[in-house]
């Protein structure tokens, strides 16, 4: 056999490399490199509430004034300011604010942006990059409405309520548990959520105040301390301060309550005309009763679209409004009444939590409160019935016939 001859692999001496070919390639690479550079992070800033501003037809000058005023009152995401009147602890805010980093003693800073901002947004407007993919959408703190709390429906949650939500997460939604963060960190985050909420609600108040202006004001908000802090900020802060004294009064569940009997009574109430749970949660309690309603956050967008944008003749404004809807609002979704057979309780699974929900309803959601119309003892019966719903009631219930969950996997 002949020896194998390999091809001549020596480098050809022939033509010199021709730059004409490589130049375009280099150029393209350069451009790509430059283009990738637009991901560089500019300093974080709070976004003006464009939906409300456009809804109230603010002029650019008015938008600028609101942005200036709110910035003076609350600072920026990197540099939050808490006026003493807010009652917020600026040291806690600083722990949660700013970019994610460790300070000189190795303590973690920028907690909000590490854990929350990708859904709730830097502004707390629920417009973070992942928000649109979640169902339900993350909470927009700006209207100052919170669902899961131990206070009466119209009141703000207490610090402990928000802490519980952070620790337990909200099962059934995309909100995970942050139970493994330290108490200091959770505390800082709760404080920061309050800060964003107060800021957002004050901002909405300022924007709405423009409509309320007298004609002499020529569309310019007064920039006096008395108006900004004394009126607009105080109105919001007062509600937060009042939360601690607005706790729902929960009477003790009767000690001698017979569970089987109580569940039967609760069932009666569930289907009855008084509590009327069946109308929304459905006759099977699968949450299929009322499926075309919206929660407050979505209703706000729906109402604006159907009532105002669609009836408006100023096409320029309508175009702008549609751009605002695209960029500053999420596509509205209907709200589903809870499927009570799954055993997933968003606001907590303790009987106490269910009592709160039934007593006060769920603020922001269509769920009405039974306060005043259903006596406390009956609310306990409903609680017991609701807690029994995820389990098969196999005929008669008794000590020798335990309830067994249906297995859904």
């Amino acid at each position, binding site marked *: *056999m002949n*020896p*194998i001859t*390999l091809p001549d692999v*020596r*480098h050809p*001496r022939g033509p010199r490399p021709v730059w004409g070919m490589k130049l375009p390639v280099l150029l393209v690479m350069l451009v790509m490199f430059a283009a990738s550079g637009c991901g560089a992070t500019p300093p974080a800033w709070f976004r003006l509430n464009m939906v409300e501003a456009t809804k109230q037809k603010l002029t650019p000058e008015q938008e600028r004034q609101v942005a200036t005023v709110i910035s003076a009152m609350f600072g920026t995401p990197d540099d939050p300011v808490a006026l003493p009147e807010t009652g917020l602890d600026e040291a806690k805010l600083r722990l949660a604010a700013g970019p994610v980093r460790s300070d000189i003693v190795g303590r973690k800073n920028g907690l909000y942006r590490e*854990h929350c901002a*990708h859904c709730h947004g830097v502004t707390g407007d629920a417009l973070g990059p*992942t928000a649109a993919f979640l169902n339900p959408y993350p909470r927009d703190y700006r209207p100052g409405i919170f669902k899961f709390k*131990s206070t009466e429906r119209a009141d703000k949650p*207490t*610090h*402990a*309520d928000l802490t*519980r939500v952070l620790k*337990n*997460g909200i*099962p059934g939604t*995309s909100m*995970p*548990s942050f*139970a*493994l963060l330290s108490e200091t960190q959770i505390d800082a985050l709760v404080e920061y959520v309050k800060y964003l909420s107060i800021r957002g609600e004050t901002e909405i108040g300022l924007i709405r105040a423009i409509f309320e202006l007298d004609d002499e004001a020529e569309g310019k908000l007064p920039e006096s301390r008395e108006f900004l802090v004394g009126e607009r900020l105080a109105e919001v802060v007062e509600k937060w301060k009042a*939360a*601690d*004294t607005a*706790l729902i009064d*929960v009477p*003790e*569940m009767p000690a001698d309550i017979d569970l089987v009997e109580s569940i039967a009574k609760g069932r009666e109430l569930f289907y009855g005309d008084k509590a009327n749970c069946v109308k929304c949660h459905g006759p099977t309690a699968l949450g299929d009763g009322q499926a075309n309603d919206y929660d407050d956050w979505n209703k706000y967008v729906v109402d604006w679209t159907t009532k105002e944008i669609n009836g408006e003749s100023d096409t320029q404004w309508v175009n702008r409004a549609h751009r605002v809807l695209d960029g500053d609002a999420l596509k509205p979704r209907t709200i589903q009444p809870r499927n009570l057979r799954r055993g997933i309780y968003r606001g907590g*699974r*303790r*009987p*106490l939590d269910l*009592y709160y929900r039934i007593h006060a309803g769920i603020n922001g959601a269509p769920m009405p409160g039974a306060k005043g119309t259903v006596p406390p003892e009956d609310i*306990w019966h409903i609680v017991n019935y609701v*807690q*029994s719903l995820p*389990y098969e009631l196999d005929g008669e219930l008794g000590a020798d016939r*335990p*309830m*067994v*969950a249906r*297995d859904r*996997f």
Partner: protein
Amino acid sequence: MDQDKRNRDAGSGGNPPGDTWVDGLPQGRRWSGIGWSLLFLLVPVLGTATFVIAPYYNHWLPKDVSVHGRSIDDLFYFILVLTGVIFLATELILFWFMWKYDAAASSKPATYIHGSHALEVVWTIIPAATMLFLAIYQMNTWADIKMRRPRMSPSAEVVARQFEWRIRYPGRDETLGTPDDLFVVNDLHVPIDEDFLIQLKSMDVLHSFFLPNLRMKQDAVPGMKQPVWFKATETGTYDIVCAEVCGWGHYKMKGRVTVESRADFDRWLARIEAEQKATQRGPDEIPMAAAD
């Protein structure tokens, strides 16, 4: 062999020294031959150094606190040594060949051979036998951690979801799916020196339930119940992590497993139970303003 000889003859005849292309090379060519072989010698040297240094930088196996972890670690070390020796040998041979047959140093032309049947048989059979040995050798360990499930009802259920671990204990009746079940998130508690059987589920996508210190890793598959069991041997708190990229928040799926004495574990369960049955606010839920 004849073949070799012929090759050599043909080579020396066909490619005389002093051909133009050799002249064209820079003067430092002698160095380049040594340089390249030394550079490739760095592979086994640095490779070994990495493994030697790693434990000092805490980049080694986490502390093993499980019963079956020992046999897994032994397997790991055994395979590491086996592959390590082969790796070193291969790399050194590669280095030696590069050094010895540097084109610049040796004027001997390359020879081309068709191959050696006997050699190929040898280097196929040895790895195959090794693999077969490993496959048989590890069977007992595999069976211990994945097949010989302790005969008991689940001690807890872990449901993975984006992005947390929802844990359910069966409560007093020791049966999951009854109203006295206890629910916690991300915080698994386990009694020491007892078999612990977890029923693993996923609510949404693939996750992987990974307990590094307990040498336990199991994919959580939507629609399936996976049994996971272990016996912890040392008290302390250890990590639970997700070992399957499950979405943008994968990094958030960090939990904690606490190994504690039976008494502590029961106390903890009782606390969770009391908390979960609460019909009144706990002390931390009453704001100071309202407490007055």
